[in-house]
C-alpha cells in the first residue's frame, strides 16, 4: 500500500489543523485545511439527508456561513444539486447566464454575500451520503486538475470524519486511526468493506450509513483493521446481531 498518496497527504493536513486547535479531528479541520491548501476564500460543510432536515455543520468565514444557510433555506444551489446528483457541481462564475437561470434566487444572494465561484462536493461512499462540502472563491475561475483531485480527497476525508463522529464514545478511538491522525486507506480490498456494509444493513436492519458506522466502531473497539473485520463479515466468520449494543457482537470464529 502506498503511503505517498494524495489521501494520506490530505489527511495529514487535516490532522495538523486539529493539532493546532488542540482537539480531536472534526469536520471544521477539513474545511480549514482545504482553505489553506486550495485557491478558495472559504469552506463550509452541511449535513444532508433524504429523510431528515439538513443543517450546516461548520464554516470558515461569514461568506461560507451565509452560503450554507442560503442553500438550505432556499432549497437550491450547487450544494443541493451535488447532493441530489451524487457528483461534484463546479460553478466557475455565478454571473453566468445559465447559472442565473438554474438558481435564480441563490445566484444573486450568493453574489451579494461575496462569492463569485462555488464548488460543491458530495460526501459519499456508495449509498452513504451524509453531507456536502462547499468551497467558494471571491473571483471567477476553475480548479485545475490537481486542485480538483485535492478537493475530492478533502471531501472523502470529511466523509470519514463525519461518520466517525457518530460512533458512541468516539473520544476513546484506538486502532484504525494511526497516531498522526491518518485514516486507514480504504482503497485496497475495499470491495469487501463495501460488501460487509451491505451485509450489515440486512443483519442489523439499518441503513448503509449506520451499518458502516457500526463496522468502524467494531474495528476501533477491537483495535483491528477495518478491512480485516470486513473480510470476516463477508466470510461469515463474524455476525452482528440486530441489537443496539455493538459490544454484544458475537465472534463466531
Amino acid at each position, binding site marked *: 500500500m502506498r503511503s505517498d498518496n494524495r489521501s494520506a497527504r490530505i489527511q495529514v493536513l487535516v490532522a495538523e489543523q486539529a493539532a493546532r486547535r488542540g482537539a480531536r479531528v472534526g469536520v471544521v479541520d477539513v474545511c480549514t485545511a482545504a482553505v489553506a491548501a486550495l485557491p478558495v476564500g472559504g469552506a463550509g460543510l452541511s449535513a444532508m439527508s433524504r429523510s431528515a432536515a439538513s443543517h450546516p455543520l461548520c464554516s470558515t468565514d461569514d461568506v461560507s456561513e451565509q452560503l450554507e444557510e442560503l442553500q438550505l433555506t432556499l432549497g437550491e444551489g450547487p450544494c443541493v444539486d451535488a447532493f441530489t446528483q451524487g*457528483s461534484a457541481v463546479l460553478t466557475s462564475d455565478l454571473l453566468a447566464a445559465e447559472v442565473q437561470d438554474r438558481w435564480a434566487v441563490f445566484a444573486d444572494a450568493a453574489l451579494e454575500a461575496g462569492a463569485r465561484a462555488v464548488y460543491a462536493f458530495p460526501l459519499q461512499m456508495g*449509498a452513504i451520503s451524509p453531507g456536502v462540502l462547499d468551497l467558494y472563491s471571491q473571483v471567477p475561475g476553475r480548479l485545475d486538475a490537481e486542485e480538483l483531485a485535492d478537493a475530492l480527497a478533502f471531501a472523502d476525508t470529511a466523509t470519514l470524519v463525519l461518520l466517525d463522529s457518530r460512533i458512541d464514545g468516539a473520544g476513546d478511538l484506538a486502532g484504525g486511526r494511526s497516531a498522526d491522525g491518518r485514516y486507514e486507506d480504504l*482503497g485496497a480490498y475495499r470491495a469487501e468493506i463495501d460488501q460487509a456494509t451491505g451485509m450489515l444493513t440486512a443483519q442489523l436492519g439499518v441503513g*448503509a450509513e449506520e451499518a458502516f458506522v457500526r463496522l468502524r466502531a467494531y474495528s476501533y473497539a477491537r483495535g483491528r483493521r477495518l478491512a480485516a473485520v470486513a473480510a470476516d463479515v463477508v466470510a461469515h466468520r463474524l455476525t452482528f446481531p440486530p441489537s443496539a449494543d455493538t459490544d454484544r457482537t458475537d465472534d463466531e470464529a
Partner: protein
Amino acid sequence: MNQRLLAKTFVELADNLVADFDLIDFLRLLTDRCVGMLGASAAGVLLADRDGELRVMAASDEQVRLLELFQLQNDEGPCLDCFRTGAPVIVANLSGEADRWPRFVAAAHRSGFGAVQALPMRLRDEVVGALNLFHAAPGPFDPDATPLAQALADVATISLLQQRTAHRSTVLNEQLQSALNSRVLIEQAKGKLAERRGIDMEQAFTTLRGYARAHNRRLSDLARAFIDDSEALPGLRS
C-alpha cells in the same frame, strides 16, 4: 477466431452504448465477452482512482477471490506494469515470472491461472486503467487475440467517454470518481442481497443485473433504491 462471433460481439457492445447506459453493467458485459470471444478464463476492467490506485470496476466473476487477485496488483503484477508504462504486458507462462512478481504469480496459480494479458486503457495521452485477462492454461496466445483484446480495452475507454458526455461532466477526475462511487454502491447492494438471500456475491450481482434489465432500470439506480429501501421492488425484497 470466429468471425461471426467477433462481429456479433462488437455490434452488441455498440448497441449497448446508448445514451442512458450503465457504466458498470456495460463493463461487465465487456468482460463477459472477453471470456466468450477471446477464450480467457477471467477478465477484469481496472480504473485508477485519484491516488493512482487501481480499482476493479467490473469483472467476469464477482467472487471476492477474483476481485482480490485484480486488486493485489496494486503492489505488483502485469496490470500495474501495464498501467505504469502504458504498454501491453503479455505473459504466456506465469511460471517464468515468479522472480518478477513473486506474490502475484503465487496468488494467480492458487486461483488456477497460468497466463495473463494486461492491455492499457488510454485516453489521449493519459492511461486511465487497464483490461486484465487471465487464462487457465499457459501457452502462446493466438496472434490475432492481442489486437482484439486491445480493441476491447479501447471500447472500455470509449464507454467512459460516452458516460462523461451523458453526465455532462467536463472533468476526468470528477467523472472517474463518480464511476468508482457507482462501483461502491454495487458492492453494498451485492452484500445486502447476498446476506438476505444466503447467496454468493456473483449470484447477488446477476440477480440485481437481471432485475434491472427486466424492469428497464439502470443498474446503479436499482442498487441505490435497493440499499435505501426507497422503493417496493417486488421480487427483490423477499
